[in-house]
């Protein structure tokens, strides 16, 4: 009879609920995931504290033996999986699972002494047989092309439970370095059944939970053979949206932004005494690639003209908030053979127009196809604009990353220019030494030099690689827009954050609070 359901009653109920909600909110205003109280215990034992990191590009699986991408090793290498060696903050190769190693005079035989008390999180001890298994597995089971770096290994043998002898088919400077990357990770013979979701390693952390679409939770491995890391639990939270990443730090949802993807918004962190901003370098060269299979790019004058037309400093200022370094070639400042080659190609639009005239390409139209990544979309617009100033018509379009970009640019080579950051360390050989790679750069001189550098002494390697970098620049193999900066924003009391991004891993063991 009386349809009094709605109206007053519900309104009151609604108001009460709203008030309760606001009350709850106000009560916990400003509370972040602050760690519980507790004095830091003596070193070697770690604390009870938890840490939350914000990252981008969530991995689709935890198995980097079959999947590419920087995200998996970033999370798991050094933290969960360990190799025989690793990189320290200065980029030097230092011991990890191997306490020391010896190289024969001919550079072909490496003898590694292993630690004797390392254990996998499955309970199995780590011995030389696991090392042999892991190295051989790279050659037989890994499906990523990065595994090719292990091809130089001719044989590997366990001399004793704590000694491994690796024989290379030819001396290689590069090999030991590569052993600090993902291919050097040591797996348990019994622990490779479900690498996609159940990683088993010897490292200071183990996998506690993987909430797809949200986070990876690592907890300290209490049976770790080395020094215990400070944080008992580290949560890696993944964000699709750069702004959400920034907001999360401000509202306390995360403690560290490991890589700022919206640098324009950095000013909001300035002057905030509770936060620290770290700005260093990475291995991420933002490459404006030329498709060498495409006719216009076979003329060096066209390539040089494009490089001259770009005002790199203005580009960084406009599309990446002025953060990042200018590089003249494919080498970041953290590599031993770095030289500042930026002076080789100044900003000279007049010369660029002139070169284009000489090459009879005054009416050039080029397709710039960029992936849907923040820096690429942003900088693509500036590049297009600057090229148009010298008379090149640019058709800019975006390709969804990874799917579309991989198919059309990477596999089908259906593009003229593209922009993508190459973040693997020491990737000159992979990008410019391999004519099958997507730019299709085929320079015999460079290939020969690369082989020489690898086979020579370490000093020779440095000199020759410097020459390679120079040749690439003079030959305008591509343009290097800038080097992605290592931009970290974190709570002010967190220590151990890396100044520069050097290897593939984000080393959690160095982090502490207070």
């Amino acid at each position: 009879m009386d349809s009094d359901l709605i109206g007053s009653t519900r309104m009151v109920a609604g108001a009460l609920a709203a008030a309760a909600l606001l009350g709850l909110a106000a009560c916990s205003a400003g509370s972040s995931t602050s760690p519980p109280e507790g004095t830091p215990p003596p070193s070697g034992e770690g604390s009870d504290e938890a840490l939350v990191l914000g990252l981008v590009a969530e991995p689709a699986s935890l198995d980097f033996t079959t999947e590419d991408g920087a995200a998996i090793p970033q999370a798991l290498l050094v933290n969960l999986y360990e190799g025989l060696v690793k990189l320290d903050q200065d980029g030097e190769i230092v011991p990890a699972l191997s306490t020391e190693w010896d190289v024969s005079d001919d550079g072909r035989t490496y003898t590694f002494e292993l630690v004797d008390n390392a254990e996998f999180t499955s309970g199995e001890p780590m011995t030389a047989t696991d090392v042999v298994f892991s190295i051989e597995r790279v050659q037989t089971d890994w499906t990523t092309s990065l595994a090719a770096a292990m091809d130089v290994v001719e044989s590997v043998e366990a001399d004793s439970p704590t000694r491994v002898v690796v024989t290379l088919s030819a001396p290689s400077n590069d090999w030991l370095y590569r052993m600090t990357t993902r291919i050097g990770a040591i797996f348990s013979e019994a622990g490779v059944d479900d690498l996609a979701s159940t990683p088993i390693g010897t490292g200071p952390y183990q996998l506690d939970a993987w909430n797809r679409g949200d986070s990876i939770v690592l907890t300290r491995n209490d049976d770790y053979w080395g020094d215990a890391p400070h944080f008992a639990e580290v949560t890696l939270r993944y964000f699709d949206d750069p702004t959400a990443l920034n907001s999360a730090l401000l509202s306390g949802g995360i403690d560290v932004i490991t890589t700022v993807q919206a640098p324009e918004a950095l000013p909001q962190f300035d002057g905030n005494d509770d936060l620290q901003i770290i700005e260093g370098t990475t291995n991420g060269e933002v490459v404006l690639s030329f498709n060498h299979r495409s006719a216009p790019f076979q003329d060096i004058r066209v390539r040089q003209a494009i490089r001259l037309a770009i005002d790199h400093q203005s580009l960084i200022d406009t599309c990446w908030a002025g953060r990042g370094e200018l590089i003249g070639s494919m080498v970041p400042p953290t590599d031993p053979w770095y030289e500042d080659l930026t002076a080789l190609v100044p900003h000279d639009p007049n010369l660029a127009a002139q070169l284009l005239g000489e090459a009879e390409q005054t009416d050039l139209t080029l397709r710039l196809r960029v992936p849907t990544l923040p820096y690429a979309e942003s900088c693509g617009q500036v590049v297009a604009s600057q090229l148009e100033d010298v008379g090149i018509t640019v058709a800019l379009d975006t390709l969804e990353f990874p799917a579309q970009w991989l198919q059309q640019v990477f596999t089908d080579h259906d593009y003229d220019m593209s922009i993508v950051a190459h973040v693997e360390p020491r990737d000159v050989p992979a990008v410019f030494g391999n004519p099958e790679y997507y730019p299709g750069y085929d320079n015999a001189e460079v290939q020969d030099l690369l082989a020489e550098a690898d086979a020579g002494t370490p000093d020779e390697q440095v000199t020759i690689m410097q020459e390679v970098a120079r040749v690439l620049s003079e030959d305008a193999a591509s343009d290097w827009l800038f080097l992605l900066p290592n931009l970290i924003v974190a709570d002010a009391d967190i220590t151990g954050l890396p100044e520069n991004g050097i290897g593939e891993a984000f080393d959690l063991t160095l982090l502490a609070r207070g």
Partner: protein
Amino acid sequence: MLLRVLVRSGVFLASLIVSSVLVFWFLAGLPGDPARVALGVNATEEAVAALREEFGLNRPLVTQYVDWVGGMLAGDPGRSYVSKAQIGPQLADRLQVTLWLVGTATVIAVLIALPAGTLMAVRHGRLSGLLLAAMSQVGVAVPAFLAGILLVALFAVRLGWLPSGGWTPPVEDPLMFLQQLALPALALGLVQGAVLSRYVRSAVIDVLREDYLRTARAKGLTPFRALRRHGLRNAMVPVVTVLGLQLSTLLVGAVVVERVFVIPGVGNLLLSAVADRDLLLVQAVVMVLVVAVLVVTFVVDLLYAVIDPRLRRG
């Protein structure tokens, strides 16, 4: 009545079948070899070929379709090409999250719309009614994600009262869960509330014009009292229908809001799945969403018959 239900059920089933065929055939035409994308930039040709074999991507489309439907009916949408994990549990988790979001937003929307709409109708033509109407117009014109961005800017960053996003399951930390739910649900709910309130308003206005209400008012009752006594039941009819129709819009809004607030719901899952070319996952998510809407429409149809006695007779 029974015949009606039977017919409706038949139509419902037919719709399910047709939409599953549509979804499958359309997505099977996706460019970008799913196997290659699943394996990443540096994958070798052999690996790609092996993956295609493993997931049966070389079989004729009809076979793949039949297998897929069979699996879905058994509650097993299969394994993702990219993560190799079972899709089922993942989808269930995500669905739960989105249901919380959409459910709370609907509650907020109704809590806003009913009083606001009624007030607008009753004060139709007067200043307060006009003001409310104007506000509701603005509410309708603002996209949910814009509302979300502004709410974050104000409540999360400026005031620091609420987190800017993220998600905690209610059993783990009820307080955090509520805090994280507040802004996104509000963003969705406010906009939906504005839309809904306008339907309520027109429904109530219509009811107010009805004869029996005029009689009641002639007897001396205020419009409000008259409504309460007689009219609200009928006013509910279009509201229920609209709620059902609005489900699609709510889901759309949820997709964008989930992106802004980084909530691991089906919306975000869909966007990631498309970017990863995780074909099977996209199919599963799209199918679930479509089924959800079809089910709700079906239920609303039946409810309609119950609520409106005039229809039941007809």
